[in-house]
């Protein structure tokens, strides 16, 4: 009999299939997502055969009928997975599609979605989203899908997220923007075509002019070469003896350059003007046109040639710029850098500029400035050094020692006459108190004792900040208790050091050892004895307490076990009596039990579906419970009646 029953049970489970069990497992969770491993398992199981798919549909619809939104939500997620993959699944699900929709979206008024309400709302929005997706991808083949979608959208006016259309619209917008920008580019290109030769000529002429200028300069510069070297060297040797080597090299290089002087100033001016024009106007122009040419979508001979020429032009400009830079005419960077320098000066930060950066002729002045600035720089730095690091260095050793141990006292007026023992004038400021009514004694003196009395140093006692350790006891819902109490947490008892998991670390032995160790080294015998005595007493006491507790626990557990045994027996008897008739019901009962056990086992670990359904008791609820309890209302009514009675009696004292 027994074996037969187990056999049938097994067969049933076998028939039910792997998928059904997997689905049951996957939907029994409080997470927002289905466990990916289970999901994968479901997928592979469903993939194996058509029967499994049929089972999956049946199991999922059963899950969908459960009065718990979380279960339904997870079931919907699994349905989506299979729906997007299996044709058979689709055809099977679609047969009862109205039922599915009413269970997942809850559009029927008499069949609202079950609690918890937060999950229910996510379930609804998710299902609507999924329905839209399904309709978009498979609507053509399944009239039921179309019908359901149409009904929800057009009859019930549900709001669909409209993912697909939104995406299409975005794409459309992007395309339009691109077309517009292309048109603009094309227009620019046309403009450019017209003005191309003009621009080119202009730029070319500027470049040519620059070239000419440079040529002229070079022709002139050759004969001034030697004298410059001499002067430069002298100056440098005088002012900067330290960086001599480096600067000399620089100077030698610079010496070969042509410098501006009164003779060639005009040329330099022209050159500078031209350079400015070239860099500030023509160069960006060339860049712009080049980018236009690169981006424009025209396959044209003109475009290629123009692009080539512009690249050449740009190279010319760059080379011209370099040449000018060699001459010391850095115009583009010039104004910007100048601005920077100004800012720096305004901020009061002093920096040493490299000598080669500015144009050569006024290097003398520059150097002098440099020396000044370096002096200025040095002075405060030295001061700072003195004040910070080498404060005690020049003091006698005993004083240093004293200073190191001296207490730090907060600043106060009493520090003014610290250690002085003399009288102070009462009116030390020399104020003339002429209009004062009383006698004015300008020589009044406050005696030293009084001053000492007045300047008694008071400080507010400040407790040493102690960090209160958190309780750190493990919580049921995961994590550690973060309550900070001094000695005992109201929830988790006395605060003991715990490890990262929240398990208490047995500290007594270690402390004992640490205490014992110095005693072992042998310092004072009596003390040690005393200590040991104390320790043993303490330990004994703790042991006793522990023993008592353990015995208590033992008693409790044994009691519980006994109760459990009794219950088990009762249940067995009841079951036998009630459902001895069919093996099916027997199996059913046992399976239920197994599930129950499973749940019980899990309860300790994580929140269950039931806990989601349970309403949280808020303070309001508690208060209302208090206030609305029968006793309280009775009492208040009684009180009110009494009050009224009293009033009545006062008002009509002659009546009963």
């Amino acid at each position, binding site marked *: 009999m027994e074996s037969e029953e187990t056999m049938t049970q097994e067969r049933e489970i076998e028939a039910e299939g792997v998928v059904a069990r997997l689905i049951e497992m996957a939907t029994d969770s409080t997470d927002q997502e289905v466990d990916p491993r289970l999901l994968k398992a479901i*997928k592979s199981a469903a993939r194996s055969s058509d029967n499994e798919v049929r089972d999956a549909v049946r199991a999922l619809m059963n899950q969908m009928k459960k009065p718990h939104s979380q279960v339904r939500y997870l079931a919907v997620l699994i349905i989506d997975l299979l729906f997007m993959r299996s044709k058979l699944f689709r055809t099977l699900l679609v047969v009862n599609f109205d039922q599915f929709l009413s269970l997942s979206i809850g559009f029927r008024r008499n069949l609202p979605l079950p609690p918890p309400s937060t999950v229910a709302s996510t379930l609804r929005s998710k299902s609507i989203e999924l329905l839209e997706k399904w309709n978009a991808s498979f609507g053509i083949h399944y009239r039921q899908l179309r019908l359901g979608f*149409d009904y929800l959208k057009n009859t019930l006016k549900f709001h669909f997220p409209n993912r697909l259309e939104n995406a299409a619209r975005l794409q459309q917008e992007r395309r339009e923007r691109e077309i517009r920008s292309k048109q603009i580019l094309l227009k620019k290109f046309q403009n450019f075509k017209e003005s191309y030769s003009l621009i080119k000529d202009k730029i070319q002429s500027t470049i040519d002019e620059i070239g000419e200028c440079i040529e002229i300069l070079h022709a002139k510069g050759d004969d001034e070469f030697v004298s410059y070297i001499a002067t430069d060297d002298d100056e440098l040797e005088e002012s900067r003896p330290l960086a001599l080597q480096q600067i000399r090299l620089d100077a030698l290089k610079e010496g070969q350059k042509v410098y501006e002087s009164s003779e060639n100033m005009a040329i330099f001016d022209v050159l500078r003007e031209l350079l400015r024009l070239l860099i500030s106007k023509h160069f960006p122009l060339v860049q712009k046109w080049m980018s236009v040419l690169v981006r424009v979508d025209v396959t044209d001979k003109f475009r290629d040639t123009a692009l080539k020429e512009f690249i050449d032009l740009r190279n010319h400009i760059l080379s011209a710029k370099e040449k000018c830079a060699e001459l010391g005419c850095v115009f583009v960077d010039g104004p910007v850098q100048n601005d920077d320098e100004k800012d720096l000066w305004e901020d009061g930060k002093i920096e040493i500029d490299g000598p080669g950066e500015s144009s050569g002729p006024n290097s003398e002045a520059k150097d002098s400035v440099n020396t000044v600035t370096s002096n200025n720089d040095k002075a405060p730095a030295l001061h700072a050094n003195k004040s910070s690091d080498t404060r005690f260095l020049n003091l006698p050793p005993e004083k240093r020692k004293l200073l190191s141990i001296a207490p730090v006292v907060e600043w106060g007026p009493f520090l003014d006459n610290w250690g002085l023992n003399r009288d102070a004038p009462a009116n030390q400021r020399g104020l003339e108190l002429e209009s004062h009514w009383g006698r004015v004694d300008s020589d009044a003196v406050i005696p030293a004792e009084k001053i000492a009395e007045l300047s008694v140093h008071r400080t507010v006692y400040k407790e040493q900040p102690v960090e209160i350790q958190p309780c750190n006891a493990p919580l049921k819902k995961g994590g550690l208790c973060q309550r900070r109490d001094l000695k005992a947490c109201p929830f988790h008892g006395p605060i003991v050091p715990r490890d990262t998991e929240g398990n208490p670390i047995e500290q007594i032995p270690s402390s004992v050892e640490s205490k014992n160790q110095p005693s072992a080294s042998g310092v004072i015998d009596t003390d040690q004895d005393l200590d040991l005595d104390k320790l043993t007493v303490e330990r004994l006491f703790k042991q006793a307490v522990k023993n008592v507790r353990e015995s208590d626990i033992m008693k409790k557990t044994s009691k519980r076990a006994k109760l459990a045994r009794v219950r088990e027996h009762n249940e067995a008897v009841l079951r036998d009596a009630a459902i001895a008739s069919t093996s099916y019901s027997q199996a059913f009962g046992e399976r239920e039990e197994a599930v129950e056990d499973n749940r019980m086992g899990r309860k300790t670990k994580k929140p269950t579906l039931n806990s989601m359904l349970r309403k949280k008791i808020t303070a309001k609820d508690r208060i209302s419970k208090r206030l609305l309890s029968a006793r309280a209302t009775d009492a208040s009514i009684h009180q009110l009646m009494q009050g009224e009675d009293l009033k009545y009696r006062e008002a009509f004292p002659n009546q009963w």
Partner: protein
Amino acid sequence: MWKEVRAREEGALPPNSFASRIRSRRTSSLELSQRKEIVSPHHGAVNSLQVDLIEGRYLLSGASDASAAAFDVQHATDREGNGLIAKHKSLFVVDKQLEFGHKYAISSVLWYPVDTGLFVTGSLDHHVKVWDTNSVQVVMDFKMPGKVYGMAMSAIATTHMLIAAGSEDVQVRLCDIASGAFTHTLSGHRDGVMSLEWSASSEWILMTGGCDGAIRFWDIRRAGCFLVLDQSRSQLGRRPPLSTNTVNKGLTSRMASSGQYSAKGLVSQRKSSLGNTMKQLPSLRKGHFLSKGSTVQRLHPGMTSGQNRATAHYGAVTGLKATGDGMYLISSGSDSRLRLWDIESGCNTLVNFEAMRLQTSKGMKLAVNDDSSLVFTPCMATVKAYDLWSGTVKKTFHGHYESVNCCHFSSLDQELYTGSNDRQILVWSTPFSAAFEEQDREKVCSTDQDNWSD
């Protein structure tokens, strides 16, 4: 199927049974049509549907937004999704905007039985209107004493063209299209009349079901009703296959033969399911005639049944449908019952139709398939196909999202049309269609396939 074609070629299978076999196979495989879609122009519940009786091509629908529309169910107006979905848009719509249109909900629509040039609409605004289909104009207007709940025209009438209209009023009126006047006022019901049906075997017999729960039979050539169906008067099983019973009704030979044919099949069924046969039937029938004869008051002989307060249903009779052979009547009531009546004897055949829940507030249109083996009944948001003789549910059609009001079975295409409160008109057809070509199949497969790739 090919085997049958071969048998038919060889002459082993008579043409009639070949056709009926194919038909019944197609009927039994009905499901929501994936490719045929009727685009409902209605903004309210679809109350009534009818396919014309001549070509079986034009579907007429009446809705509660006072609109009526006609569709061509054989030729699609539009195709969608690579031509997979055939959309049937309305050929014309008549609604409130029309000058002579109805003001309130249309409760029933009818094609003129012999021609699609005319159709009739009855509305809750107390009017029955006759329309010219081609010009979409009202050609005749009958003002009824109350809201019109139902109408019927006889499909076999050769001597009259009467619209029987049942309304809030207790009297059933017969509107004559030929003269534009009421020819008859049939009084006998004690409450409004929801459903009417002309006999399929005699053009003068009208059957009406009222909100008082009575089903009355009228012979329009005589005064008063001649029969009131009584749910407590019953016979077990179908009528005995005696030709003498059918003589006085003057059935056509075709119907008689078909009756006999179907009765033969039933003998075994009756033995198995119903046990004892109709031993008591003769006595019952005698009693029936006795009761008819013994009236207390002396009335006009035709009016005697006016006193008969027998009921066919507890509550209102919401739908009536005669079988194609004109021998049986199916009635549905607000007591959520379906009853099958023997028209000849007027007895309840006690077929127990399985549990159902019917809409109670509105009249509804039942449908019967062409060999009268199935009855399609709107059951809230679903349609159930019951086996007519055993009462078991053969199939349940899920697809509508709100209560279904009407179904109509087109015997030409073996298609079922249903109209519902969710404003949709759905087509239910067999998935094996001749028009479904290989090419289409390929198209389907390209997008609707298993996709286990990841």
